[in-house]
């Protein structure tokens, strides 16, 4: 390894290669493209939560100047466009297959949530498109709207799917024999993902093909879904994705709007752009979470958990999406028992259809909901038993010697040293010094509380295979193409570092390309999978490129392959000064390059985990919560770029704190109108939430055993730990005020008004 280049290899906090352009405003987001002849699309959306559509009159709109097309759901159906469908093998409680009213790309017959697209206008200017949309007359017959789960569960037609896991009889027996039973009734409220860049699509016909630029996490999935929904010929769509201003899961699957823009471009033979406003994203991009749970834990006299029982209701919105159902009915439950050795479970999860926007992936996707439940239960149990909450967790942790460990849901953890994370966390947070800090806060008139969450998560989407290409070019550059997607998380820099590890050349030589569906097919970036799947593939493919280079170099130098040493981009005959550079070798090839197209499959998901400890101070008079300190120790496996990993965990934690304290997507229970559809009313965490007492530590001593890099996915870890850590801290503060009983039903977001009411009550 060349020491100079090694400074940019893995393990180093290399500055992100993409940032200079992004900071200088030179990013290439979809919205930055404005091809000649570009027309603009505007969606007319439903003002009602539930209504029958009696008629749509578009005549006046079509007659307005500058209008190129007015498209309705009927037009799309007539053209053969397919509806969005939920097609998972889940069943209703009576055993009937999952069946929900499909969402046509534009509403036909009825609208079922406020903001559902009803018609699309394409015009020369956005203003003309909006004028025309206002001229469309839709005659609605309003129907009663249901947004509340307690109501939806009463209506069998709204109970779209149910899953049950475990052994109810064994759990009943465990509960009957338990020394302690604790119970919580808690909600995990609906959230709006709200990436900095809202959705944006630009579709342009090019010969027989359609070139679709959009802001997405999944280039080839977007291509395949467009082809499918619009019944297009395979190969007729090319998806290009430039810079992406955040995804958080919200930009995983294709939206009806995306397909309508593609349809409109073909119908008008013009490039057509739609850029969602912030309000459109609040109304019609997927929301996350929205689960209400009753959970019980049975413990023996020593605090060993005997059984876990969870009954969950998930509001999956008006048109259930595959992801929305799977996240709550399957994926989340995989980690319900977390890092604790609990083999007796009794779970039941029910998906409910309501007149709200569909739910889908949002950072953590099911795991935050599951971990929140068990970490709240742990705290309630510790308080009930008079145990230190860290000690109760310790007594139940799976030991390293139990790895690989199969949990009650059949998931296999490859590695984990949970007590090691706990011990470091307690030390870093000065767990023992808490009483002094609480007393000091009390002297300042503040209520201090301390909360802990120890947990793991599943990553990877169970899409374990990844294809990459690596081209060593005669001009001195190395180009890596990946079908995963960069969206602000810095994955390209991490891939480049992994390539530097193998090629031993300066990082400037490496270019990582994303977002061109013509260049490769893959799952995309979701579920914290990119590094351990595609990163492994980059490493393997780079190794193959060096091997091939070595063979070619041996031919060129007329020596045996085994006689060649490789360092700093150069093959040298051992013990001599005869050498040839890898780029020189590449230049000699017929195509002027060494090209590797390689697919790598890893052997399983990764199970990152950690110990997050939060201390809060509550202003008794206003109810405001201040995050006084936030300390986390994280098992991220081997770390490629510590700066990026710390950033991912800290940013994720801030998002988790956002859920705990601020965020909630609220619908009026009577009318189904969204009450928080802008930042005016949807409270986001801001930079000033982060205080100096914010420490993120990484423990790299427990490499993942199922991928060649030993890395674990970290995109969602922070989000999962932060909500229970903060809420447990608030519960602790309340308990110190003699209000321990409130802990069992404490609900997020812990707004000042809610905190004040709790403290007053």
């Amino acid at each position, binding site marked *: 390894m060349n020491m100079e280049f090694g400074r940019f290899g893995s393990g180093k906090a290399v500055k992100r290669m993409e940032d200079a352009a992004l900071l200088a405003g030179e990013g290439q987001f979809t919205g930055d493209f404005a091809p000649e002849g570009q027309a603009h699309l505007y969606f007319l959306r439903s003002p009602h939560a539930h209504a029958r559509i009696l008629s749509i009159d578009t005549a006046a709109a079509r007659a307005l100047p500058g209008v190129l097309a007015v498209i309705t759901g009927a037009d799309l159906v007539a053209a053969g466009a397919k509806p969005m469908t939920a097609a998972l093998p889940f069943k209703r409680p009576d055993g009937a297959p999952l069946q929900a009213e499909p969402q046509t790309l534009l509403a036909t017959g009825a609208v079922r949530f406020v903001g559902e697209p009803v018609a699309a206008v394409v015009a020369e200017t956005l203003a003309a498109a909006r004028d025309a949309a206002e001229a469309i007359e839709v005659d609605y017959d309003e129907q009663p709207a249901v947004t509340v789960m307690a109501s939806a569960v009463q209506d069998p037609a709204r109970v779209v799917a149910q899953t049950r896991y475990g052994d109810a009889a064994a759990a009943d027996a465990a509960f009957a024999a338990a020394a302690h039973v604790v119970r919580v009734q808690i909600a995990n409220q609906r959230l709006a993902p709200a990436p900095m860049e809202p959705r944006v699509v630009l579709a342009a016909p090019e010969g027989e093909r359609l070139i679709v630029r959009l802001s997405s996490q999944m280039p080839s999935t977007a291509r395949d879904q467009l082809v499918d929904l619009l019944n297009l010929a395979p190969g007729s769509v090319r998806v290009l994705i430039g810079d992406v201003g955040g995804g958080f899961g919200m930009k995983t699957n294709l939206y009806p709007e995306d397909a309508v823009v593609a349809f409109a471009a073909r119908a008008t033979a013009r490039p057509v752009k739609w850029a969602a406003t912030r309000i459109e994203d609040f109304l019609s991009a997927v929301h996350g979470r929205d689960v209400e749970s009753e959970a019980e834990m049975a413990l023996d006299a020593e605090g060993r958990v005997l059984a876990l029982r969870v009954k969950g209701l998930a509001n999956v919105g008006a048109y259930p999406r595959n992801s929305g159902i799977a996240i709550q009915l399957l994926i989340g439950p995989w980690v319900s028992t977390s890092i604790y050795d609990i083999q007796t479970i009794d779970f039941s999860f029910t998906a409910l259809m309501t007149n709200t926007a569909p739910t889908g992936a949002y950072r953590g996707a099911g795991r935050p909901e599951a971990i929140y439940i068990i970490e709240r239960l742990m705290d309630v149990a510790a308080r009930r038993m008079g145990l230190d909450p860290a000690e109760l967790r310790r007594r139940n942790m799976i030991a390293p010697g139990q790895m690989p460990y199969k949990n009650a849901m059949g998931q296999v953890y490859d590695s984990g040293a949970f007590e090691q994370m706990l011990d470091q966390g307690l030390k870093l947070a000065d767990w023992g010094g808490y009483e002094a800090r609480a007393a000091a806060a009390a002297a300042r008139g503040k209520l201090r509380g301390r909360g802990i969450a120890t947990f793991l998560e599943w990553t990877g989407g169970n899409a374990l295979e990844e294809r990459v290409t690596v081209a060593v070019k005669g001009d001195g550059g190395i180009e890596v193409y990946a079908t995963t997607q960069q969206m602000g998380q810095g994955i390209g820099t991490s891939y480049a570092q992994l390539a530097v590890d193998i090629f031993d050349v300066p990082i400037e030589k490496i270019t990582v390309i994303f977002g061109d569906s013509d260049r490769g097919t893959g799952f995309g970036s979701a579920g914290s999978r990119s590094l351990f799947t595609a990163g492994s593939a980059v490493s393997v493919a780079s190794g193959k490129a060096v091997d091939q280079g070595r063979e070619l170099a041996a031919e060129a130098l007329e020596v045996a392959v085994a006689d060649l040493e490789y360092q700093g981009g150069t093959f040298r005959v051992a013990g001599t000064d005869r050498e040839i550079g890898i780029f020189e070798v590449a230049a000699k090839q017929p195509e002027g390059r060494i090209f590797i197209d390689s697919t790598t499959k890893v052997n399983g998901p990764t199970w990152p985990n950690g110990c997050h400890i939060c201390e809060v101070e509550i202003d008794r008079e206003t*109810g405001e919560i201040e995050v006084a300190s936030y300390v986390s120790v994280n098992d991220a496996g081997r770390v490629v770029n510590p700066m990026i990993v710390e950033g991912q965990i800290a940013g994720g934690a801030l998002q988790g704190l956002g859920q705990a304290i*601020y965020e909630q997507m609220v619908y009026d229970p009577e009318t189904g109108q969204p009450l928080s559809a802008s*930042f005016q009313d949807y*409270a986001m965490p801001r930079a000033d939430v982060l205080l100096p007492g914010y420490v993120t530590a990484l423990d790299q001593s427990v490499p993942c055993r199922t991928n060649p890099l030993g890395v674990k996915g970290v995109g969602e870890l922070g989000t999962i730990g932060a909500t229970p850590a903060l809420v447990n801290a608030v519960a602790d503060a309340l308990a110190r005020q003699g209000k321990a009983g409130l802990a069992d039903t404490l609900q997020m977001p812990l707004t*000042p*008004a809610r905190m004040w*009411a709790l403290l007053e009550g």
Partner: protein
Amino acid sequence: MYDFDYHKPTTVADAVALLAADPDAKAVSGGHTLIPALKHRLNKPTSLVDLSGIAEMRGIRREGNALIIGAFTRHAEVASSEVVQAAIPVLSFMAAHIGDNQVRNRGTIGGSVSNNDPAADYPAAVLGLGAIVHTSSRKIPADEFFLGMFTTALEPDELLVAIEFPIPEKAGYAKMKNPASRYVMAGALVSKGPAGVRVAINGAASCVFRQAEMEAALAANWSPEAVAGIQQPADDLNSDIHGSAEYRAHLVTVMAKRAVVNAG
């Protein structure tokens, strides 16, 4: 936004003439309320009368025992003005805590006061300091200026030109921010000076108002304790997803107490 005509007069008289000639014209100052409303097509004026070219609406000056601030003075200018900091520091403090940098560099005092958003900061200063609003045609005492939610004594063709603040002996401001918008959930400006002892409450109700019971208590005993026990009735206070009327009523007392502390 919809199409509209655009005018940029250079005198108050010309601006008033433009407004008088067209009942659907709107004056725009910093534009931080109007421009978003236009973008969302919530407002459809025939023309906009841009006040940024009118020199007589600008400037900060001290005249005897009063501070006169031109309507087109940006929040950032009030925040950083040494004249304001010396005469009425609470005004600089308030201005420095409106919105964010972008808002403070665009928004104007005249725009904020004319708009009379219940959750705005400046109306509390105008009412709480007993200011006099100078318009294109008259002078209106603060007590007669704020009539209700987004409603003032200004006629459609009358422009706020400057605000005359009597210099108080003491004044303090405290507010609780809405967790989402960071507008005022409940705020209090307390002052003692030539306009008497005044307590103006913003954010909590549909319009800024004076809290007479607190004024009487502070007149008798200028201390945080004097207002700590006074409960604002929750009737008629705002209630929304961010907080109940009862919570806002409680905050009125807390903010009044903190405002007195801040006044020193």
